[in-house]
């Protein structure tokens, strides 16, 4: 597709309003290629951002994280990036700030916490709570 879809007239659209996920033909198994190595079409929702839905955002502390992947599996928005069995970070373009990752994080202190959207990650990490003692 040369023209962005928003500039197309009715005559240039794919019949039946069909949408392609990828540019051109793919000759590999998508399930074996991570998203960063795929060639997405502009009509894949991957290219959009829903980050503006948030008023609070999760911040990840790699120091306390044990790579358990609870956050990865329970994120409804495919916004926890996991590679090679390790947690790599939060995809802020796709994160809606639901806070599920925080609620399922098992470490003490948690390795994911919600902060105000305008708080920088650096500041947030500086404010990280201490380990909770038993009974606290």
């Amino acid at each position, binding site marked *: 597709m040369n023209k962005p*879809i*928003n500039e197309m007239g009715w005559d240039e659209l794919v019949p039946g*309003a069909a*949408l392609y*996920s*990828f540019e051109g033909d793919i000759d590999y*198994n*998508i*399930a*074996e*290629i*991570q*998203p960063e190595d*795929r060639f997405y079409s502009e*009509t*894949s*929702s*991957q*290219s*959009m*951002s*829903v980050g503006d*839905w948030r008023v609070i955002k999760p911040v990840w502390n790699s120091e306390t994280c044990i*790579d*358990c*992947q*609870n956050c*990865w*599996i*329970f*994120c*409804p*928005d*495919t*916004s926890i990036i*996991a*590679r*090679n*069995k390790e947690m790599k970070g939060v*995809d802020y*373009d*796709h*994160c*809606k*700030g*639901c*806070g*599920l990752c*925080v*609620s*399922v994080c098992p470490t003490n202190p948690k390795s994911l916490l919600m902060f105000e959207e305008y708080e920088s990650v650096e500041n947030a990490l500086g404010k990280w709570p201490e380990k909770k003692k038993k009974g606290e």
Partner: protein
Amino acid sequence: MSTQKVIKNLKSFSTAAERFEGSHLLCPGCAHSIIVREVLNATNDNLVVSASTGCLEVCTAIYPHTSWDCSWIHIGFENSSTAMAGVETMNKALRNKGKISKDTPTPKFVTFGGDGSTYDIGFQWISGCFERGHDFMYVCLDNEVYANTGGQRSSSTPIGASTTTAPAGSVSYGEKRQKKDIVSIMAAHGSPYVAQVAPNKWKDMVKKIQKGFDTKGPVFINAMSACTTEWKFAPNQTIEVSDLAVDSLVFPLYEIIEGRELNITYRPKNIIPVRDYLGAQPRFKHLFTPQFEYIIDEWQRRIDERWVFLQKREEIRL
């Protein structure tokens, strides 16, 4: 032995390359997408997916964006199952005619439908597909209401829940009917495999999904989908509420093989009172009044009875 990829633990599961993209329009905290991700990540095979009109379909395929990295079709509200029956039959026809090489691995055919579509308006269509024995998996995303249109009751809505068309009020405790037992109904169709799953118990769910993928014939999976918007709890409580559901046995996790052998696949270490489950969701808050409190006792009695029944059935292998 499964023909699907081996998933030893959560760490190895996390190496999956996602085929369900972010920036869909589902609510923050929606269990639908957790379920879809677990299902799609359970296999590396080619996929054709269909969906009924509902939250999942509407939020993942609004022109001009699609969240599906696989072939996907939606026709209408009733007929995601029959759409897939058509795809599965065409695949058979093209293979028989040699238009698709016999060396091409058969793709997995997966259909998603909400409880509205599955239990109500699309029931005939699913029944027909299961009677005809098409080789596909049907996953019901059960949030116990017509969520996409604002929370109207369905035949999956459990007794005492407040919905917009059966609301709690000064003279009503909300839904008057018991939840339909869809798993038994689908097992009675002679389906080789039916199961009830919950996304919080991912290991149990993924095991059953893979078993379903390995089963020839129509497979029915009822997946509990705790709905933050319609059950009215905070978006970050989805997993917590799901845990309450399975630990109180309101949503027991089991499978039925060949319509006969029932296996309970999750036995909570501590069975918690139904009251705790109901109390976590404002859609039931009106039950915690002197006027309607007896409904909670009714709930507990029924859940207890059903747990006894499930265990007995598991014992006698029939």
